[in-house]
């Protein structure tokens, strides 16, 4: 086994894992508080990449600006969506939220495909992050190292805010019992709106990170989101650290599968999902309710 291939796949696994982690984190937080399975998460990730593309094409704003602008723009669109549509569904079965967000994802992806085709638009990495390092045993492209480290930092910061701060204690408490938290004087409906905006913004941020790697493509989120849902099922809802560990871990497992048994690389996550569901239906880190 050439170590070159092994480390190459490890890196690809970490990159994929970074996207799994960031996206499943947002899905977990949204599901916890809103009770909505946000199937438009993949479309929102794609919109993040497109906002980065628009920033460059229309306003001349580069990658660093896009990292800030895309989450704000897509997060705001998410907030409007929550205020006008999602909030009507909270008292209904999960299925309604899933159907609405799935339908929205199809509409959004359809519009983008109509406007921009499905071949993908190029988006370059910023000058600062081009090139790479020769580590001796492998070549490490700077941009890919940046994606892994930056998304890890974003995930850990999110974990810190939710698990270790006052704001996070409101969020955790409202996930358990929103009625009581509101009766303590906290504006829970506003918190729900902002949480959705945050989760969606996180997806858009992942989209900007992905743009230089995968190009900007209207369907870039459609395939990814299916795997991300499997990651969420494996990790179990309700654990922030669980989402992060499972996301990166499964990315690496998938990468190594490409080295050792390439035929299974597209299915390994779903096989793991089936096994986890058999043994621990609530997921590896989930709390059985």
């Amino acid at each position, binding site marked *: 086994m050439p170590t070159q291939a092994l480390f190459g796949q490890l890196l690809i696994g970490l990159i994929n894992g970074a996207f799994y982690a960031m996206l499943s984190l947002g899905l977990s937080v949204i599901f916890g508080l809103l009770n909505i399975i946000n199937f438009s998460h993949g479309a929102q990730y794609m919109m993040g990449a497109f906002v980065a593309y628009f920033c460059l094409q229309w306003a001349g704003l580069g990658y660093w600006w896009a990292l800030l602008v895309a989450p704000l723009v897509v997060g705001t669109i998410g907030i409007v969506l929550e205020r006008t549509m999602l909030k009507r569904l909270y008292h209904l079965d999960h299925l309604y939220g899933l159907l609405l967000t799935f339908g929205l994802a199809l509409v959004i992806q359809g519009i983008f495909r109509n406007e921009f085709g499905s071949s993908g638009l190029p988006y370059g990495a910023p000058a600062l992050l081009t090139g790479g390092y020769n580590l001796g045993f492998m070549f490490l492209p700077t941009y890919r190292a940046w994606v892994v480290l930056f998304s890890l930092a974003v995930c850990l910061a999110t974990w810190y805010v939710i698990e270790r701060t006052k704001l996070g*204690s409101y969020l955790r408490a409202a996930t358990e019992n929103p*009625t*009581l938290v*509101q*009766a*303590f*004087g*906290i*504006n829970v409906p506003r918190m729900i709106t902002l949480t959705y905006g945050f989760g969606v913004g996180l997806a858009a941020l992942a989209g900007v990170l992905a743009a230089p790697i995968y190009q900007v493509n209207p369907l870039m989120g459609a395939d990814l989101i299916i795997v991300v849902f499997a990651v969420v099922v494996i990790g179990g809802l309700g654990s922030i650290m669980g989402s992060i560990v499972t996301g990166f871990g499964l990315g690496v497992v998938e990468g190594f599968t490409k080295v050792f048994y390439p035929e299974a690389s597209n299915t390994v996550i779903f096989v793991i999902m089936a096994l986890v569901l058999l043994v621990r239906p609530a997921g590896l880190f989930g709390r059985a309710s």
Partner: protein
Amino acid sequence: MPEPLLTVRGLNAWYGESHILHGVDFDVSPGEVVTLLGRNGAGKTTTLKAIMGIVRRRTGSVRFEAAELATLPSNAIARLGIAFCPEERGIFASLDVEENLLLPPVVKPGGLGVDAIFALFPNLRERRHSQGTKLSGGEQQMLAIGRILRTGARLLLLDEPTEGLAPVIVQQIGRTIERLKRDGFTILLVEQNFRFAATVADRHYIVEHGRVVDLIPNAALATSMDKLHEYLGV
């Protein structure tokens, strides 16, 4: 008789389609401890939840100081200085004891400090880093009462604080209520256990089929036993 702190008039409330309260009327004066007594399903808990705005579908009037509460959402009601301690205690499993204690925001000046709450319930200090729901039932009840004392609310709505607790804990909670009364808190207490209610309350309202049907001052409780037995079916 001073001006009432809380005035409830013609309060109706619904859970979905079921009409639970059919015109509840009563008053609570500042510094009083008042109980709502009645059988299971009479509407006592719903009355507290309707005052607090947790039951959203309600009509009639709930006045607290100068404010009309019947149209406000629960977070706005809490901000006026009313705090609710639910029957199921509502301790959060994903928060430790200290986080549970610090969760309700301070809405008015004059609430108890954390040290004063720990002095009232020393068990909580020892267990402040435990997961909230790992506490015993009695400790959870202390935590549920303790955390609303921090907020500066002057009107406390306590829903069956003694339910399912050992006699020694019930006594401790009784002493706490007496202490809070001395400190000037106003307390509206829902109870099944009228023997406990008799040790702490000034007046008792009897709730039946979603209405207040009688008022018994605590001093008259001994002479009203027959009536009470009939109301409560005990």
